[in-house]
């Protein structure tokens, strides 16, 4: 199989690659969402810590 044939997918390129593209997006979103959430939580907690130290 040549590379051109591979990307052509026997005429079904649009359907096949759209499916794989969407899969990639969903998987990436699943990884990025907890990473972002974690950064946000830790930043919030660190802010709270600083505020409490000032109050003392």
């Amino acid at each position, binding site marked *: 199989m040549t590379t051109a044939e591979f990307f052509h997918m026997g005429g079904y390129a649009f359907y096949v690659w759209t499916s794989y593209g969407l899969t990639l997006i969903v*998987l990436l*979103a699943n990884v990025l969402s907890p990473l972002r959430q974690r950064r946000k939580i830790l930043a919030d907690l660190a802010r709270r810590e600083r505020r409490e130290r000032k109050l003392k």
Partner: protein
Amino acid sequence: MWRFFHKLGSPKHFYRIAGAWIPWLALFCAGFMLVGLYLGLWVAPPDYQQGESYRIMYVHVPAAWMSLFIYVVMAGAGAIGLIWHMKLAEVMAISSAHIGASFTFLALVTGSIWGKPMWGTWWVWDARLTSELILLFLYLGVIALHNAVEDKRTAARATSILAIVGVVNIPIIHYSVEWWNTLHQGPTVTKFDAPSIDVRMLIPLLLMAVAFKLFYAVVVLMRARCEILQRERNTQWVRQLAGES
């Protein structure tokens, strides 16, 4: 051994152990996925009826399997949380909901994209497709209910009950292609006699299925760690952790 499980039940130790496992699980997931994609997209022969379009199967079928698997895990964790009041089970249940919803969405959309060239339509209201759509609504219901209740423990109880009731949909989805006449094809792998699928197509499919399972393990642990940080925000160890970062 029991000490290990006992430790695993405490959020602090779970947080640490999960953190150590995530990179390894991610590594194995990437390995399975790369080999699965290579064999599935490049090596496996085209289907004698569907040509190259059948290659959508390598993401569609694992996503659909995961949508069912994660639901059962979520309901099981919810039940454990209800019965033994295990905080960690509650955390696993709600962390699974978002991931399960995304895989259900993926199964529906890739199925639709596959249906257009093969069946000539994006969507039909047949048993398999409709019951899978109901699964998506169940996941979204669990997430919405969890967000609607302020107190985390009350929210966990309510969502667990909803998740357990929804389990009735799982066998309906699985057997829908046998109980009703549907456009969706019958099972070719998960039946009792030998799978009626060429082994060169079966191996990449199974590799992708394992990769998706490992992927779920990675992201559910990542989400669970976030959830634990939120819930344990007032404990000494989380304060210390936040101070270090």
